[in-house]
């Protein structure tokens, strides 16, 4: 596995927390750790994990993508129009969804790099556009996704949830190789010291655009997965995903200032958030108290992540965080 490097203790801490919480969840779940329970848990967490991965790529190069939620919604809506019919049509539809999402990411990247807009502002505006297009394509929730296809993606293979296998494939088959390429290295270089990266000949413009294209692609994957889980299209799902994706990567040890963290951490953060929600559902907490406790845990988790500010040896170090 991709064990976090000792350089990022937060990621390790997050992993330990996640393991503890997952053990608690499956230990206390009324029906125990059956494949069925695992699958539902893994599906929910995987959606958020994919959005978090999208957000991770944007944040890594000192951007923030407020449009990931809108891209998820748009992909979900497009999928609800295209993912039915013959096997060929479905394959073509899947490709089309991912292409649409990737184009959204490309638009963000071009606006940010060549339009010189601040990432937060540019993606705030494009999220309105993408969300509007989604609403145009599907004014009210509806549409269907091929059930066999959806089942294949959201059930299990030999007792292991397909969603978890997908996560594993992304980490082992995509992230680890990417990390070793020049592009992967450049992502970190730009995030931690943009000017130095530029002076050393890193194609900063291209790599930044690439990061946002990847963000769009993964948001599209998330939209596809939402479609598999809900088998319907809904243009109104955007806001929660954007905000939760930011919370997830922070929990997973990704620094919002860029250059720190990994895709693996983003996945851990997303799984932590969803496990908290799942734990609460079975905890016997009154339903009305759940949103509050969820917010409280989020705030505490973030505050604990920043507690080392109290151990700073010199006041000035604080400003470089």
């Amino acid at each position, binding site marked *: 596995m991709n064990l976090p490097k000792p350089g990022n203790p937060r990621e390790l801490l997050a992993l330990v927390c996640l393991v503890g919480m997952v053990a608690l969840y499956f230990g206390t779940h009324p029906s125990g750790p059956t494949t069925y329970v695992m699958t539902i848990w893994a599906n929910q967490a995987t959606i958020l994990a994919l959005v978090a991965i999208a957000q991770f790529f944007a944040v890594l190069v000192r951007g923030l993508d407020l449009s990931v939620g809108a891209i998820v919604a748009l992909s979900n809506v497009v999928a609800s129009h295209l993912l039915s019919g013959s096997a060929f049509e479905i394959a073509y539809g899947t490709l089309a969804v991912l292409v649409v999402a990737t184009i959204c990411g490309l638009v963000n990247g071009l606006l940010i790099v060549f339009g010189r807009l*601040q990432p937060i502002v540019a993606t705030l*505006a494009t999220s309105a556009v993408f969300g*509007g297009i989604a609403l145009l394509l599907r004014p009210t929730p509806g549409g269907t996704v091929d059930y066999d296809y959806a089942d294949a993606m959201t059930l299990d293979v030999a007792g292991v949830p397909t969603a978890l296998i997908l996560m594993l494939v992304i980490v082992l088959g995509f992230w680890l190789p990417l990390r070793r390429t020049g592009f992967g290295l450049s992502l970190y270089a730009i995030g931690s010291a943009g000017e130095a990266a530029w002076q050393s000949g890193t194609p900063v413009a291209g790599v930044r655009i690439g990061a946002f294209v990847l963000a769009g692609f993964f948001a599209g994957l998330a939209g596809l997965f939402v479609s598999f889980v809900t088998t319907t299209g809904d243009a109104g799902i955007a806001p929660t995903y954007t905000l939760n994706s*930011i919370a997830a990567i922070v929990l997973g040890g990704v620094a*919002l200032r860029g250059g720190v963290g990994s895709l693996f951490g983003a996945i851990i953060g997303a799984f932590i958030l969803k496990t908290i929600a799942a734990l609460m559902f079975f905890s016997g907490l009154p339903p*009305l108290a759940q949103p509050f406790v969820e917010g409280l845990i989020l705030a505490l988790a973030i505050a604990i992540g*920043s507690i080392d500010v109290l151990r700073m040896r010199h006041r000035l170090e604080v400003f470089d965080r």
Partner: protein
Amino acid sequence: MRIDIDALVPWVGSLVVVLLGSLVFPNFLSLDYLLTQAQIASFLGVLAAGAMVVILLGHIDLSVPWTLGWAAIVSTTLVGTGHPVLEAIAIPAALCTGAIIGVVNGIGVAVFRIPSMVWTLAVNAMLLGTSVLFTGGFNPRGEASPLMRALASGDKLGLPNALWVWLMLSVALVWLLRRTAFGRYLVAIGLSEKATWLSGVGTPRIVFGAFIVAGLCSALGGVLLAGYANQAYQSMGDPYLMPVIAAVVIGGTSILGGRGSYLGTVGGALFITLLTSVLSVMQFGEAWRQIIFGGIIILMLLVQNFRRGVQA
């Protein structure tokens, strides 16, 4: 007085929107229509004023929706009790709520140095949670006091009261930003917090102050909106978050902090209100409104950047 040209962009934009709109509906140039728009823009403007103070600092306040929501809930609930004293303190209590939320935001950002985008988001989530807990998920009972209704909907000397509130807040804020040390430090921190701290400024104090001002403005916006709707309702603030940030940004304030003018924020609030109004009067559906809205914001920002690029 030096006028930032970026700040004029939304003003020109507002003019263009009204003129283009009037080609289709001559009504757009009537005083009545413009005053109604000014009244609606006041709600957005009050919220944007607070958001701008925090953005000047280089931070962002994402807790606007539920700060606004809680101010509305507190004020309408107090009025709803029917007790004259409680009714009298409804507005001060709402403003206090906003200030307290500002302090909570300040603790996370100034003391724990959590990125404001994340911390205020968490605070917003907690506020949502407490409100669900408090109201049981239903619309809170209660109503706006006559004073709140008058502030939001009445008029004095031919101008809507909401506009007067906005004007007074604006005067106070311009004074705060231009004539006080607090305002100078705010911009200085936006440019370089480290340098400001090394110059002997107690930067955490300023950050606290900024978030308290933002909380107060959000709460005032909440009181006005509750007065306008004569009630508080669940997630009444959610549709305001993005327009508020957009109003500040198209007014030429840098999202990174340190640069911006209040005149631009006022123009931004007017522009967004007029654009929304024109698009809905022209019978565009919600979907097209969003697309055009987003497109125009991108266009205006590109124009600003292009102009700066030509200048440099």
